């Protein structure tokens, strides 16, 4: 937790409403995201109970499993979900664009759009991951055949769940994660996992403070949980009798239809409030202008989608149960790289995120007081253009002489620290020597060298070591997810 974000929480508490921690949107939002609100049966291993799914607020489909312990009904549910999800995915396999690869010696194609799945919370992502695991190995022949769409659904859900682990990916997003990336509430991170409470803070109803709205949202009788876990009270009081009534009506078609309708009504009532909240969340996020580098990360999602669709077209098999050691190490490396790159990109896109780095001494903002755009260094074999600028800043400058800095406004230009000199009033003068990003020749292209009077941010954060937009293969795509891998040590199962 950065001090800046922590302060935003304190301010939110005092103001009674969530405070922004971003000035731009750091994720891609599809015009038609597929929203999924799942419920699972308590006590079972990820047994689906119900789901609301659809790509627009008024396009809800309710899927229910009247007897969640019945395996045939579980797979029937999977087939129904597949009947919604697979056409949605196919809808994004239209136009493609050519992307140069291998330094322009080759091209490959990727879809110009990609699907986006939204769930209420991280537990929703886990639900989809486990549903993917439960279905991707299913056989369509043999003793317990399933509908051919079921294993396909499993592969796609697994694909999305894996993407969700990559910092910066927008392929499968938990709404609570998306919102907390942009707003700080006056409650703790654990409490932010409850979507109704979180939205209570961000967008409290008129006449209520965020704290009051959140407190109301915590009462399951007033506001059902956002799943996948159900409210135990609901289970005991309403769901159990309704499931029993359905089971008891086996022989009587009319009674069975009535029992089914009652179950549908109960479950829809539990899901509908979360459905509304999901779209309210979408609306709040849409109102933010996208960050400049969001599109680049989304291109990574489009690459991955294209790659996986091709894999399946070519008859590719399901993802393994567990990664081998090498694959796991490679994956971890990719995740770490993506995490770093995504953090840098967010800082470049958003002054409020960069402010966190300024506070940590990794960046400062100053005003250009002197500029020598024509300076040429002729001490080497060939003369080279090396303009120098001087900035004056009121911020502490913790970078050493010789360090290489970058400015988000001129990311291709390197700025080497030449002098750091304390000046009057606690200010600091910094002299930087520039290279790159000025065109060819010994004269800088117009506007490529900062001029006196410009206010600029310089940072040690560099985009450079990850070449943007060059994705060698879909497999090698630097993927950027929004969820960080858990870091808390937990007791380990040994088997």
């Amino acid at each position, binding site marked *: 937790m950065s001090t800046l974000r922590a302060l935003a929480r*304190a301010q939110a508490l005092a103001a009674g409403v969530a405070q922004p921690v971003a000035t731009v949107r750091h994720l891609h939002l599809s015009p038609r995201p597929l929203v999924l609100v799942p419920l699972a049966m308590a006590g079972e*291993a990820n047994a689906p109970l119900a789901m609301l799914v659809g790509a627009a607020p008024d396009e809800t489909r309710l899927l229910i499993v009247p007897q969640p312990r019945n395996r045939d009904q579980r797979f029937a549910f999977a087939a129904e979900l597949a009947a919604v999800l697979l056409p949605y995915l196919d809808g994004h396999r239209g136009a493609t664009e050519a992307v140069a690869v291998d330094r322009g010696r080759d091209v490959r194609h990727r879809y110009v759009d990609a699907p986006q799945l939204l769930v209420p919370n991280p537990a929703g992502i886990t639900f989809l991951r486990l549903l993917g695991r439960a279905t991707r190995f299913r056989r369509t022949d043999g003793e317990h055949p399933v509908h051919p769409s079921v294993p396909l659904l499993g592969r796609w859900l697994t694909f999305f769940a894996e993407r969700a682990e990559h910092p910066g990916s927008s392929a499968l997003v938990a709404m609570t994660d998306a919102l907390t990336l942009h707003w700080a509430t006056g409650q703790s991170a654990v409490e932010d996992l409850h979507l109704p409470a979180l939205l209570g803070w961000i967008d409290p109803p008129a006449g209520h403070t965020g704290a009051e709205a959140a407190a109301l949202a915590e009462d399951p009788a007033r506001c059902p949980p956002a799943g996948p876990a159900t409210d135990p009270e609901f289970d005991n009081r309403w769901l159990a009798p309704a499931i029993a009534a359905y089971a008891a009506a086996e022989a009587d078609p009319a009674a069975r239809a009535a029992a089914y309708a009652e179950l549908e009504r109960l479950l829809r009532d539990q899901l509908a409030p979360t459905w509304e909240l999901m779209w309210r969340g979408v609306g709040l996020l849409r109102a933010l202008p996208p960050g400049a580098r969001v599109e680049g990360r989304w291109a990574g999602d489009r690459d991955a989608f294209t790659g996986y669709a091709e894999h399946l077209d070519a008859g590719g098999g399901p993802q393994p149960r567990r990664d081998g050691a090498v694959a796991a190490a490679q994956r971890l490396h990719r995740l770490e790289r993506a995490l770093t790159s995504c953090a840098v990109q967010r800082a470049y896109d958003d002054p409020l995120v960069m402010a966190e780095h300024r506070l940590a001494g990794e960046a400062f903002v100053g005003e250009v007081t002197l500029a020598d755009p024509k300076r040429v260094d002729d001490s080497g074999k060939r003369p080279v253009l090396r303009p120098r600028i001087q900035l004056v800043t009121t911020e502490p400058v913790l970078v050493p002489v010789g360090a290489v800095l970058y400015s988000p406004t001129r990311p291709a230009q390197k700025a080497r620290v030449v002098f750091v000199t304390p000046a009057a009033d606690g200010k600091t003068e910094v002299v930087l020597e520039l290279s790159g990003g000025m065109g060819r020749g010994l004269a800088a292209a117009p506007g490529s060298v900062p001029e006196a009077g410009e206010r600029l941010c310089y940072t040690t954060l560099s985009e450079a070591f990850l070449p943007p937009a060059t994705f060698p293969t879909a497999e090698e795509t630097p993927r950027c997810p929004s969820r960080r891998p858990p870091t808390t040590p937990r007791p380990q199962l040994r088997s």
Partner: protein
Amino acid sequence: MTSSEQRLAAIRGGVPARRHNARTIAALTGNPGCTRRAVLDGAGVDKPKLAERIGFPARFGQSRFAITRGNAFEAQLKADGGVELLRLVAERLGVPPGDRADWTDLGADDLADRQRRSREVLAAAVPAGPDEPAALFDHPLLGLDVAGRRVYLEPDLVAARLAGRFHVVEIKSFPVIDGQADPGKVAAAAIQSAVYVLALRELLTAEGHDPELVSHDVVLVCPRDFANQPVASLLDVRKQLLVLRRQLDRMARIDALLAAVPEDFTADLTAEPATLAAALSTVEARYAPDCLAACELAYFCRHEAREQTAALGRPVREALGGVPTVPEVLALATGERTPEPEQAEAAALLRAAARLRAEALGLPA
């Protein structure tokens, strides 16, 4: 009755102490620094009722689906006299199950009887060497001292004697999928199992045996993947044992805890809610968001702590330089308040943070 016991009884308002179980004892480790909780739990106050009485009911309901499922899985595992269970456990421990296994059910109607039998049978069965036949003991009754009171544990656990040691076997109905389980559930199972390990070790010690004959490796048996097939995993609970030991020791010094509690403190459920709430406020608490999942008083304590930075989570409090309350944080950040000497560094950071936030948001600093 000692004076401490009398005081604890008075705090409860004369009603019998609430019975502890492995789950409530495990929960004691949740917020070990909290005096309020240590005193209430030490006295055996019915915290769920107390929370309800003061208008902050806890939400720890359990779905009957989960209960049914848990019972069904356990029954399935024990259905064949433990043959399959023993095979699983032995295989996980890497020992041959042997062709003969004893299954002793220590369950009985009479509590005292059961306690005596558990003690006798388990003491007599103390592992003597690796070559003995395997043995399983179901429904033992174990005891632990919590704040000077004897607490009886009725685990549905099985203690297995295999390869010269006792192992606690814990049956849980959450799934292990591709070798992975819900980390929160595994953590809860680990600390609960540690309670049993500790109790079993104390039983052996009391009977003059080496407590280390009880392994710190607990065998956790769960359904595998999405089916009902059981799978056994090992859980090393050494860390949990340490934490538990430390907290039980602290509660054993109940006199010291009571010294920090006002003489007239009461949690008598018949008292007026306002009286109860006021009384609670006189005993120091240490609310953290983790309390929400661990202590029935959490909503009350959260309300009380609402201006404290700790209520926003430990990382937030730390990032705010440890400044205890939100109004102080904001006053330091705006410079309205002159920092105490030891707050100077935190105050400078907060002022810089406030200035940077205002600048980036285009607000007046």
